[in-house]
């Protein structure tokens, strides 16, 4: 006997179609109200312009400390988020609105603002050491470090530099020289480093500035790409099935995007290019799900011509339920792993997918099928499937 989660059930899904449509409507309404009048959607640097800075501190800090530091220099309204790694990693987004006559000046102003943020965070850390001619080992580049090593350890300079920088990449930042020693350094090298360098309190791991012109362009291109790909899907489904199925698919996609975005708007996460990729992935899974059901409906219709469409749809949904749960389950597992272990950069993306993978099943059952049913009620003439 095959191992089965359950026997093919007989749930009358479509009995609840109007309840579900109402629920969908409510969720989207709440999301739209929140987007338009509440929190709003936070556009990330990709679309909204400005600068996103990621820093790692040597010792744990709190968001409030950082906010206070920035407030002291008049940059208090920057958004600050902790980004994992035991309170050492933070993500700072400058949100000051800059309006300049020229987009280049605007970009430069953003850059300057970012410089100010970094300068404020650093404070006067390392000033004394730099004054004594020491070099910050947490911020030195490979050329600089090789040059530093050249005097006493000429032959080993490139190898030493590589092993130290690889370790630094791994750790993000050196907290003390004990950590530096893990690069497999000889005692004399370590003594030399202690003598010539110091460990600065923070390092900037990334910084991204998008000017107004580029931001507008990215927005335009992303919108264009999404619209065209939706049209492509509509045309194909209308061609392979029937027009109402294509229309239903588009409604489903709209629901997928709107519901996910609604949930997203209630978090403090930002919309960036990878989030667009996540939304498209959700749409992809959802359309896959929808087509599997439609395919089954197409097949069942041929076998049971007398049955009403609603009965056939319920039957198809039930027949495919095992497959739906297994597929969604595996996707959920994958995305769940990404969400838990994927690190900060991918976290927003995984969050989006987590909502979307469940929502995709819901939308197939309670949006795709009902729309086709409603359509056939309004335009009852069309019959049979195109082959």
């Amino acid at each position: 006997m095959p191992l089965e989660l359950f026997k093919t059930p007989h749930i009358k899904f479509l009995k609840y179609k109007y309840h579900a449509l109402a629920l969908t409507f409510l969720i989207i309404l709440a999301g739209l109200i929140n987007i338009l009048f509440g929190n709003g959607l936070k556009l990330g640097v990709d679309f909204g312009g400005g600068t996103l800075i990621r820093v790692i501190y040597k010792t744990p800090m709190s968001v409030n400390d950082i906010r206070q530091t920035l407030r002291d220099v008049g940059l208090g309204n920057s958004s600050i988020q902790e980004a994992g790694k035991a309170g050492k990693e933070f993500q700072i987004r400058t949100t000051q609105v800059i309006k300049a006559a020229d987009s280049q000046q605007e970009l430069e102003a953003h850059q300057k603002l970012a410089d100010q943020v970094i300068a404020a965070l650093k404070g006067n850390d390392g000033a004394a050491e730099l004054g004594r001619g020491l070099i910050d080992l947490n911020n030195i580049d490979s050329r600089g470090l090789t040059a530093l090593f050249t005097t006493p350890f000429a032959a080993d300079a490139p190898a030493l530099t590589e092993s130290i920088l690889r370790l630094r990449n791994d750790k993000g930042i050196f907290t003390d020289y004990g950590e530096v020693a893990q690069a497999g350094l000889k005692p004399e090298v370590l003594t030399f480093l202690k003598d010539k360098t110091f460990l600065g309190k923070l390092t900037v791991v990334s910084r991204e500035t998008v000017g107004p012109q580029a931001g507008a362009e990215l927005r335009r291109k992303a919108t264009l790409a999404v619209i065209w790909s939706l049209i492509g899907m509509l045309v194909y489904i209308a061609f392979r099935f029937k027009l109402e199925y294509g229309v239903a698919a588009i409604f489903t996609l709209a629901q997928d995007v709107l519901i996910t975005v609604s949930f997203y708007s209630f978090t403090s996460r930002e919309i960036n290019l990878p989030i667009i990729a996540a939304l498209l992935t959700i749409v992809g899974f959802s359309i896959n799900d929808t087509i599997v059901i439609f395919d089954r409906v197409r097949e069942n219709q041929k076998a049971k011509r007398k049955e009403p469409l609603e009965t056939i749809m319920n039957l198809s949904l039930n027949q495919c339920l095992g497959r739906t749960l297994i597929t969604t389950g595996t996707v959920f597992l994958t995305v769940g792993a990404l969400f838990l272990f994927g690190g900060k950069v991918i976290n927003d993306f995984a969050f989006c997918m987590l909502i979307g993978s469940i929502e995709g099943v819901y939308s197939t059952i309670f949006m795709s099928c009902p729309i086709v049913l409603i359509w056939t009620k309004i335009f009852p003439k069309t019959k049979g499937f195109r082959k």
Partner: protein
Amino acid sequence: MKKGLRWKILLTAVILIGAIVISYPIKDKIKLGLDLKGGIHLVMQVMTDDAVTMETDQEILRLQDLFKKNSITFTIVTREAPGKFTIQGTTPDQEGKVKDQLDQYLRDWDYIFAGTSTTVTLKPLALNAMKEQAVDQSVETIRNRVDQFGVAEPIIQRYGKERLIVELPGVDNPERIQDIIKTAAILEWKLVKAGPAADEATLLKEFGDKVPEDMEVLKGDPKRRAEGFYLVEKVAAITGKDLSLVRRSQDEYGGPAVSFQLKPDGASRFEKVTGANINKPLAIILDKKVQSYPNINAQISDSGIIQGHFTIEEADDLVLILRSGALPAGIKTLETRIVGPSLGADSVKAGLLAGLIAILSVMTFMIVYYKLSGVNAIVALILNVVILFGALAYFKATLTLPGIAGIILGIGMAVDANVLIFERMREEMALGKSVMNSISLGFSRAFSAIFDSNLTTIISAVFLFQFGTGPIKGYAVTLIVSLCANLFTAVFVSHWIFDATHTKNTKKLSI
């Protein structure tokens, strides 16, 4: 062995081996995007109008010369816009002569006479060609500079009409390289008439408070400790174009400097100017900013040095920029993304861990739930991933974070294809069909759903590739490749494995 099976196995083996050979070792063959590897991503715009303006000014100078030579009188020639200027004050009886000159020497320009003034505009085709050339030349110059700086695998490409994308993986000193790329590198030597002064007013006091027609006011470069304002001659004694050899050397105090040699033509001009202006300051100007203004101690002919309180690095960079030549137009940055290597390494590590956990749990589930058929699915899945990486290596595609998203969707749909087939087989068996019949019906009945869903997604991904930018393109590429591989492995390969492992006599299907 069953008919045709041999060929199916052979085809699969060839593709599998091909994919492995192409993508091995994976670390070198799959290029990671900047978000995973660290580096700099710049989007820049070439100010092509600059190039046209420069060209227009040159033509105006040439025309004025020609008019003087041919004794055509005029009051003034003014540039109205890039690629458009007017000649004023010519008498109507000179119209023929003016026409002759314009026809003969300014072939790319259209002109309209209106009484005493003539409007001259660059023909649209020539204007476009000039802009195109400015962009192409900028790409070339930037590539030169980046190559000389020593960046491995830089990407410098045109993007749209006037934009460039510069991607420099693994660069860990972003500020320096940005300066190198963006410096227009227009180098000029001009005689200093007054300055430095704290502001323009003081500077112009002895010239009746206005800039004399043949002079201009320039600012000093604070980086070179040459603050203040300078009044210099408009016409340069020599320019960067006259240089033949540039290298880093030392000034008389042992500080880093850049020494140069001049081409013969430039050398003779330099000799004349320096000979006539001994003990007067000569400004060295880079991109309209005064770098230094040494006194001319003696007549100089074919070589000299550029001083400016440089550090060794700065002197090296200046040499590099001068060697690669000037940019034909100004460059404006639209977008800068600098990703440190540690952030990318973090993402890769975390992504791998998550991927591993996900794949292991999916595999475990497939085996527990579908038993031996589950093993079949896993083989197909692994083959799918191998082909995916082979194809990525073959097309030299770059793997980015959104690209990983594409892979997730691809693998998700691959698992789904197997689930669809297996569930269908179970249904057919429940209806009492034989093993071979169930296998065959499972594949044929599930095919339309698999085909339609994969093709729909491929269609949408093609549009995303066509219209999307960077990350979205990366997503589309992995998705398309993964889904194509999926149609091959889940439908074709999985089917022949079933055929090969089951015969008419097989009583039970392990599913």
